[in-house]
Every structure is written in C-alpha cells, then in structure tokens.
C-alpha cells in the first residue's frame, strides 16, 4: 500500500469518485484553478473543468443553499469551505434545509451534499480559523459527521460520503493534512458509524477524536514504558457514533477517558459518557473523565494557543490519574 498524506488521500478519493460520477461537482472559494487553499482540489480543474470545479464569490450561505437545490435536482454537490469556521454563516441552510429535506419529503427527496472544511487549533490561526464544530452538527438529526484522523480513513470516509444519499459534514483537522499513512488504492470504503481501535490495551479505554488520536498514541507510548496498557478508540464518525465498540472496550478495561480538542460542554465526550454510564454502568471501575480544549475562544500567540489544547503530556497525566483512581 502506498504512503500518502491525509490531504493526498482525500484528493485521491475525490478524484476517483469524480471520475465515476459525472454528477459530482465542487463549489468553493479558490477551489478551481487555484486548487484549494489546502490543495483539496489540486489538479482537478484541469481534469474536470470549470463547471465541476466552480469558484464562488464569498457567500457561504448562498452556495450552501444552492447545494440544497442542486442535490434535490439530481446532482451531488461538494462544498469546500477551506476553513470550517466560514460555514457558520450557512448554518440555517444546513440545519433547517439540508438536514430536514429527506424527512420532510418522506424520503422522496435525497440530499447527497458533502460539506467539507478544515477545523482545529494550531499554527496561530487564531479564533476565526480554529473552530471544532462537530458537536454542533452532531446535535441535529439528518446529518452525518465524519472526523477522520488517519489518511486511509479520510479517503475511505470521503468515498463513502460521496456514495451516500445523506448530507455529510467532513471535517479535517488542519494539523492532520500532512500526516502520512498507508492508503489502499482504488476501492476503499470506510462505513459510517464504525469506530476503529487504533491501539489495543487492557488498563484504560481512551476515546480520542481527530488530532487527539495521534497525541493519545504518543501518550500511550510513554505510558507503555511505565507498564500501563492503553486502548485507543477512534470513532471516525461522530454522527452516527459507534457506541458499541466503546462499550466493548470499556467492558474490558473498566475505565474510560475521552480526549477531545473541542469544547466540553454539549460535546461528544458528554454524549459518550452518558451512553456508557447508561448502558455500561456495571463495567465501570472508576469515574469517566474528559479532557478537552479549554473553554475559551482560541488565542493567537503560540504560548497561549498551546495552553488551550490538550498536550501529549497532559493526556498522559490524565490517563495516569484515571488508572490510579
């Protein structure tokens, strides 16, 4: 299997699907000839032309709203937001239109819209280019929310998304874009709602999201040297959420911590905790812990920025503390 960056993996998936399905088109700012701020559409303009790689004015609400109309009439739009922060102006179109259209039409309309954008804190991008929005989307019925952490999953989920009739939020942490991984060529589909156990262990279950999967893996290495055995689960999609895999893991380890750069309140971690305490109450040997990004807008300055994100060391310490509990 070839090694690809996360970004190239999604580009490969996208290219394959656009070859297969002439109804797929991409809209966004600078996704045409420029190939995307994050090179998400590099080379595609030359291959597929301006109609299928459509540069837009700066009107996020507008083109998301158009995507709804397009999806209802037989095409399959991809909206490439570059930064997911810019999606905020179009939440009305997403939550009240795109997410509800299949239901309101009793399934007579499909809504194959893919909304993709970069999330996450890092590189001093500051508060308008650093949001993690998956909890928001996960709260609303009718949407699928993908948060891959590995290059292969990114490709596999993107391809699944492009064959699904549901609207999908595909959120890519900026700091993952250049991370490399083995990526299957050609047909490689990762299903929605199926978590991956990215590291097996006995003493504690760590559920980690997006970039935190990688940091947790590093923390687990440190802890392994201390004789602690950490199991790491990557949900890959947060809506649907694969709670069964998490429950099985907790059944084995008796301990659970959720590591998430996104804010804690009304986040994915609370949901996981609630589901585990409800269904796996007797499996728990200790409290469930959450380690989240600090509840604050994201600062720019490197030392401030570093302070609001869970670091490998803080993750390791939180796991140690939980095991000691």
């Amino acid at each position, binding site marked *: 299997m070839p090694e690809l960056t996360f970004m190239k993996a999604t580009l490969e998936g996208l290219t394959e699907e656009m070859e297969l399905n002439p109804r797929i088109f991409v809209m966004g700012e600078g996704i045409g000839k420029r190939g995307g701020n994050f090179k998400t559409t590099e080379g595609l303009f030359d291959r597929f032309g301006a109609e299928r790689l459509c540069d837009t004015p700066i009107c996020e609400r507008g083109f998301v709203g*158009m995507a709804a109309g397009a999806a209802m009439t037989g095409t399959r739009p991809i909206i490439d937001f570059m930064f997911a922060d810019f999606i905020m102006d179009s939440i009305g179109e997403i939550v009240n*239109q795109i997410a509800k259209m*299949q239901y309101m039409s009793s399934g007579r309309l499909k809504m194959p819209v893919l909304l993709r954008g970069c999330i996450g804190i890092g590189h001093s991008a500051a508060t308008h280019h650093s949001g993690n929005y998956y909890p928001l989307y996960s709260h609303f019925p009718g949407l699928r929310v993908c948060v891959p952490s590995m290059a292969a999953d990114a490709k596999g989920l993107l391809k699944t998304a492009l064959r699904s009739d549901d609207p999908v939020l595909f959120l890519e942490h900026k700091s993952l874009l250049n991370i490399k991984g083995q990526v299957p060529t050609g047909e490689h589909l990762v299903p929605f709602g199926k978590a991956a156990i990215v590291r097996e262990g006995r003493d504690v279950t760590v559920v980690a999201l997006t970039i935190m999967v990688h940091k947790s893996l590093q923390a687990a290495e440190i802890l392994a040297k201390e004789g602690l055995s950490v199991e790491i689960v990557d949900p890959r999609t947060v809506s649907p959420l694969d709670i069964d895999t998490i429950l099985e893991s907790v059944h084995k380890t008796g301990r659970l911590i959720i590591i998430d750069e996104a804010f804690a309140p009304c986040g994915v971690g609370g949901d996981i905790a609630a589901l585990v305490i409800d269904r796996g109450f007797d499996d728990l040997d200790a409290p469930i812990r959450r380690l989240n990004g600090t509840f604050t807008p994201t600062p720019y300055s490197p030392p401030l920025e570093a302070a609001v994100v869970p670091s490998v060391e803080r993750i390791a310490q939180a796991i140690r503390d939980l095991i000691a509990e």
Partner: protein
Amino acid sequence: MPETTPPYLRLYRTMQVIRQTEEQLAKSHQRGLIHGACHTYVGQEAIATGVCAHLRPSDVVFSTHRGHGHALAKGVTPAALIAELFGRATGCSSGRGGSMHLFSPEVGMMGTSGIVGPCILQAAGAGYSFKLLKSDNVGVAFFGDGAVNNGAFHEGLNMASIWKLPSLFICENNQFATEVPFKYAAGNPTVASRGAAYGMPGIEVDGNDVLAVYEAAKTAIQRAKAGEGPTLIECLTYRTRPHSEGMGDFGYRSREEVEAWKARCPIRRFAEKLVAESLATVDELAKIEAEVQAMVVEAQAFAENSPWPDPSTAATHVYAQ
C-alpha cells in the same frame, strides 16, 4: 412549453382551484381542522398560475410559507393539499409538513419553507444542476417582498447571474411582510430595479393580471433555456386576507385599502376580459367554476375522512434508505 396562444381556460381553472381551495381552508381553519399556521394566497392567484402554466413536471418550484397557490398551480391536488393541512397521512407531505412544508417532487413541487429566503438559493441550485446536466429544465423561486432585503436574495441572484443559470426569481410584492410595509423595510422600494445590481433583467408586472405574468414568465423561461441566464420578475399584488388565518388585519392597513384591492381581484378581472374579448363565454367559465367547486368539496371530504399518520413512523426517513 411556452405556447403562442395563452391557455385561457386552463389559467382560469387554476386560479379558481387556488381561490376555492383557499376559501375552503379558511373555513376549515375556523372549524379547527388545521392544526398549525395557514397563510392563504387569496388575491395573488394570478402569479403562481401565470408562471406555472409554462412548467412541466421536470421544471421545479421552490416556495415559501405562503405556498398553497404554488403547490396547486404546479399540480398538487386540492385533496393532497387539504389533507396535508389537516395533518393526515394522505397529505402531500404525509402530514409531516402542514401549510409551510408542502412537498411533491413527482410534480416538481420541491417544497415550501417556513424560513424566509432559502427558496431563492434552492432555485439557483436547481439551475446549477440543470446546467451541469445539460437538461432544459428551469428552477423557479417564488418569494415575498420580505425576502428581498434578506442576504439570500443578494447571494442567490448574484450567483445565478454570473453563471447564467436557468432560474426564475418571482417576487410577489404584496407590499407587506406580515405587518411591516415594504416601503419601510427597503431602501429602494422597487424590487425590479434590483436586477441591475446583479446584471440581470428586472421586470415589473401587474401581479393581478394573469396574462401579464404569463407573458413575462414566458420570456424569462425562453431566456433561461437559451442559456442567457436568470430573470427577476416583480409581481405587484396584494393579499386580501390576513397574513395568517386567525390574525387581525387592520392594525397596519385600512379596510378601504383591502377593499380597493379586492376590487382588483385577478380572477374576476380575467373573467371579465375573457368574456369581453370573446375568448370564453360566461357559461364556459361558470362550468369551470362549478367543476372546481365539486372537486374542492370532494377534496375536503377526502381530507376529513383520511387516516392520521401512524405515530410509529414519526422518525422514519431522517436518513436515506
């Protein structure tokens, strides 16, 4: 497809279907048969009728909270509409939508929305689909004057224009958004002139004259199909019933004004014209009116006798398959 001679009797019939269904709904609202809001289209019938007369099932319509007329003109039956407002399983949205969420994709009625604005964007998006698919369909948005000051109007019309999308933007300027006058809400109180901001033709027509609407829509559709892009059509009109059934009506406008507009009833005017110009006889029109009346009575009975949806289906179709 645009015809050379307007289909006079068909236009008349459609307007009658809308008017009579709406009046039936207004009565049903008083009887408590309608569970949520009910915004009637009375007074504005010429607009949906004149535009939709050109549309095939594959041409699509996106509409608003005041969408009964569009649904009927696009081919939803009075029975399916009334049953929907009664919340019955046989309604066009299986009872899920009510007055503000009418879906009938089979006939190209792609939905009405309780939120002001999105229909404009969706019609542009449909235009994008049709352009990409190289079909000759058009996407049509109906919206009120209230939507004109909303960002969706600006963003949607601009994109439709730069990409020359086969879309029609039909603004039904009935001069009020609920109780707020358009003159107050808009820095420039003509809608048609806004086309210029987007490099798009902006046409003003008498929205109570079905033939004027019909002709304007015909030209716009020809333009759209020729790849020349979208058209904005402002139809000046008036709703002669309250914003929503059960609401008061004279805190913001006068009885005289309402009466004056009732006198400009698009249906009566059209009937008079047809007879005066010998395009139809009084009898022909009376026959249509009676046929429609029978249809609406039957629709009402159908709706009243229809079953409720099964509560166990309340959460089906949230996702595909």
